[in-house]
């Protein structure tokens, strides 16, 4: 009985959606072109995804899987146009096979091509060990690049403002108190994350202050995330009311 009612709700919703779009097109609120059909498709997907708030249903699953597929295709195509074509195809493959090419082939690019191909051998049982060479290259490169840059950009540059002098001229009393609070927060949070020392006595008290700072930060991050999601929600509702139905101007 419940299954039947859900089926009728789904069919009824689709029927209503089709009727609304016919009315919108006939009344010329939506243009009869690719833009108009795009808006209808986007509105349909938006409503199908929001239908999950009622309960899981086929319309939501279709929209979700279609989104995954399109995202996958988009990622592959953008990877080609933004990375593989300008960095590999144009400077290596084109000059080798085209007589009209003005530049000589950059044969050095054979190395990353080989390493990339080795990575694809992950799926071969006999040759999967070759993918380790690629991973070693990428991981070693990342580790080497990150060490000096992380020390410079994250450690030194973050310590500097934390140890900013107070009442050194120009600052108000409140800004100096804030500077002290930031220093207290940074030190107490760092002490909280030292797990090799038992959190007892003075260490325990300071780490307790660290927990309070962390809780305020988590609360603030949560509030910030919720508001970000709500602004997306407002954006989608604006799209439905303005771009699709034409109610908002």
């Amino acid at each position: 009985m419940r299954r039947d009612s859900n089926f009728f709700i789904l069919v009824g919703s689709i029927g209503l959606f089709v009727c609304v779009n016919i009315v919108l097109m006939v009344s010329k609120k939506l243009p009869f072109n690719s833009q108009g059909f795009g808006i209808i498709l986007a509105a349909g997907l938006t409503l199908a995804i929001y239908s999950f708030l009622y309960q899981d249903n086929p319309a939501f699953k279709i929209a979700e899987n279609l989104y995954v597929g399109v995202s996958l295709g988009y990622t592959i195509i953008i990877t080609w146009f933004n990375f593989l074509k300008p960095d590999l195809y144009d400077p290596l493959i084109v000059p080798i096979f085209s007589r009209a090419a003005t530049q000589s082939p950059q044969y050095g690019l054979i190395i990353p091509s080989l390493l990339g191909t080795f990575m694809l051998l992950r799926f071969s049982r006999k040759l999967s060990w070759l993918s380790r060479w690629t991973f070693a290259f990428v991981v070693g490169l990342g580790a080497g690049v990150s060490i000096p840059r992380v020390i410079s950009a994250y450690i030194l540059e973050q310590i500097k403002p934390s140890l900013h002098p107070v009442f050194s001229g120009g600052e108000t009393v409140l800004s100096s108190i804030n500077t002290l609070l930031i220093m207290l927060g940074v030190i107490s949070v760092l002490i909280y994350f030292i797990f090799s020392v038992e959190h007892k006595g003075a260490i325990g008290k300071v780490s307790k202050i660290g927990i309070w700072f962390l809780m305020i930060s988590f609360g603030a991050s949560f509030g910030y995330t919720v508001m970000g999601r709500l602004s997306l929600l407002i954006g989608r509702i604006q799209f439905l009311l303005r771009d699709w139905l034409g109610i908002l101007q």
Partner: protein
Amino acid sequence: MNFLKRTIPLIIAFVMGVLMAMQYFVPHKLSQDLLEVVSRWDRIIAGFAVFIGAYSLFHLHWTRIKRRVAGWGYSVFVYFGAIITLIFGLLNGGKFFWNDKQEGTMFDWLYYYIQVPAGATIFSILAFFIASAAYRTFRARTNESTVLLIAAIIVMLGRVPIGNYISQYIPVIADWIMAVPNLAAKRGILLGMSLGAVATSIKIIFGIERSYLGGGD
């Protein structure tokens, strides 16, 4: 064979790690060129990595379709979406994929009218789930959770006009929370993470951390 399978990768990681760490301290053009070249190589390898992800997803959904598992029909839409996007992306508005990307093609249409709205809607749905999860989780059971709850409420109210209607101090307090206690905690976390990242990087370079090699021989 063990030399090729285990020693060579460790040597590659060591050489690349030391070379790139030293590169930062050498302000010579050769050093800058080296960084540019290996960054380009890294981008090319990352391009190949995308195909591993694509294969993995296609394989997963193909297995679902082949074995007729519950809900296998929905996997067809993954293939449908991906193939349509790939075809129009490769056609590139009639100029084909070996030319530069054209603007205003069917590929862009799919992006603007499927990927953007569906992505924004899926992420906006999280607003409802976060709210319901918060209702269940953020009960003021302890002093710490009360602090978290109050900070979240003030930041949320401080970002919308109603907060200013309730009290003109709410946006000011919200900004202060973001700029002082939030910054302090984030900075502490960042410092801890950075120290951890440096330590892990050193362990990778010197072959102490080898988990990236995977299991087996």
